[in-house]
């Protein structure tokens, strides 16, 4: 190819980028390609921790998000729920966000009742739901769940819930996980529960929120699921370990298809621009 043509790759009309990106994402949305993944350094510890808990140990999941951030965080909640059900770990859902009850309902109808018809509310999972107070709530329940929660969302008192018979405070849970879309969220759990209460803690967060949580790994949180990719990695670990007990391709893995091709397109354009730049430099170096 002659130099001039290659040089034009350095400054292509950005509308070509737009067009190619739109086409590629559009096609990926229809075709839903699946890219195999594996649990990485940040996600693996959460999976392994949950996988090693003795059956019957309750885990606490705090659904600190709302419908607008659900596309990124709900797949994490679903994957954790499936894992806990397979392992026979009772789950306790709470939330620092007013929208949390609604998010728990979506999990109950979408995952729990759908895929695990034998599981019973109260015994295999409980929804304590939202309580006002934000970080103060997290702080208050470290020693005693009963300090702020009297009953679950259906009104059943805590001492009548079989799932929580072994639980007084947060230290009695095998793991506490905050799926966090903002404030209050994972940061508050780290400061008030993980650091101050010495409770094993893990988290999930959105792509935009992720950079602020990396410093806490691995000393203050044992793992972190960041954005859709984190959820997809957890799903990958789950289907590798229990291929027969979970759906073949889950939510996040499906959503990663368009993501992966879009990232690839962006990376290729950057490489192309730099390649053309280097080529031009090399050529002008030779002629000079």
């Amino acid at each position: 190819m002659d130099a001039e043509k290659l040089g034009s790759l350095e400054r292509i009309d950005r509308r070509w980028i737009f067009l190619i990106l739109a086409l590629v994402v559009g096609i990926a949305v229809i075709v839903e390609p699946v890219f195999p993944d594996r649990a990485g350094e940040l996600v693996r510890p959460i999976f392994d921790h949950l996988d090693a808990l003795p059956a019957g140990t309750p885990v606490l999941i705090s659904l600190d998000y709302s419908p607008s951030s659900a596309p990124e965080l709900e797949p994490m909640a679903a994957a954790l729920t499936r894992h806990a059900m397979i392992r026979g770990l009772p789950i306790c859902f709470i939330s620092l966000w007013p929208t949390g009850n609604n998010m728990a309902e979506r999990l109950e109808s979408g995952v729990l009742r759908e895929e695990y018809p034998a599981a019973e509310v109260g015994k295999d999972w409980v929804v304590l739901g939202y309580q006002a107070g934000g970080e103060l709530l997290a702080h208050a329940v470290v020693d005693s769940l009963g300090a702020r929660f009297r009953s679950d969302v259906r009104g059943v008192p805590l001492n009548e819930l079989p799932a929580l018979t072994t639980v007084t405070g947060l230290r009695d849970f095998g793991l506490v996980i905050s799926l966090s879309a903002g404030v209050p969220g994972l940061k508050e759990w780290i400061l008030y529960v993980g650091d101050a209460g010495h409770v094993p803690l893990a988290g999930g967060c959105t792509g935009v929120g992720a950079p602020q949580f990396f410093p806490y790994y691995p000393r203050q949180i044992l793992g972190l699921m960041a954005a859709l990719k984190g959820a997809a990695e957890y799903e990958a670990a789950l289907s590798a370990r229990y291929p027969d007990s979970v759906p073949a391709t889950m939510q996040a893995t499906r959503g990663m298809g368009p993501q992966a091709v879009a990232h690839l397109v962006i990376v290729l354009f950057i490489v192309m621009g730099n390649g053309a730049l280097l080529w031009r430099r090399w050529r002008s170096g030779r002629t000079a």
Partner: protein
Amino acid sequence: MILLLITTVLLVALIVRSILLTRRGRLVNVRPLTPVEEMIPAIDSSVASGSPVLFVPGTRDLDSMQTVAGLSLLDQVARACAERGAELLVLVNRSLVMDEARERCRIAYASVGRGDDWNDDNVDYISDDPLGFVARVDGVIARRRPGACFFFGFFASESLLLAEGGHQVGAIQIAGTASAVQLPFFVAACDRTLMGEELFAAGASLSGDAALLGSLVGQDQGKWLVLILLLLGTALVTLSALGWAPAGEVWTVLSGLLPEG
């Protein structure tokens, strides 16, 4: 609380002291800010090509210090535009900011004796909705083709939407924001970017006013204080972790004074 009080008093005292010293004639040597230095040439080139200058003072209301910093840069930009006869378009998304921006432009134009050239309609209120606002600004950029775009103040995801709009028409773009999340987008898409605290220093730097520049010296002294506190604290904690008990005791006292969370 005590440490907060001490820090506040100390910082304010340092800044005021520097302002007073500079007023009495102490010379200050302030680092030149490249984005600020390129603002006037950008206005000149707009004048040469007969295109307007666009200014956006962020997308927050007057309760954000970043908006105030953006407006203090508007003072200077408006003066420069008035002197050179450039057409200045200010697009805002808050009514209070609109009022304040008009007032400032009026004063700036009057201060260079061009008060009659100013028309309040050049400051246009669009919509409180940041995205509705951006939709209009991008439209205005595409149609009016400004030669220079200035984005100074708080921006959320609007940053890249604005900067790419301006790039499309080939405007010289100079931006500034203190919001750390949005800086990467401005740095990538604009010609020059005031990063973080530079936004607050830019107005002083552009005005060249001795007292204002003096305040920047005080700010630096405050920063040295921060650095000392940071290094001292780290040293104490590290020594105590290595088993030197006295360091631990000093740190316990000191950390008790620092606010939690």
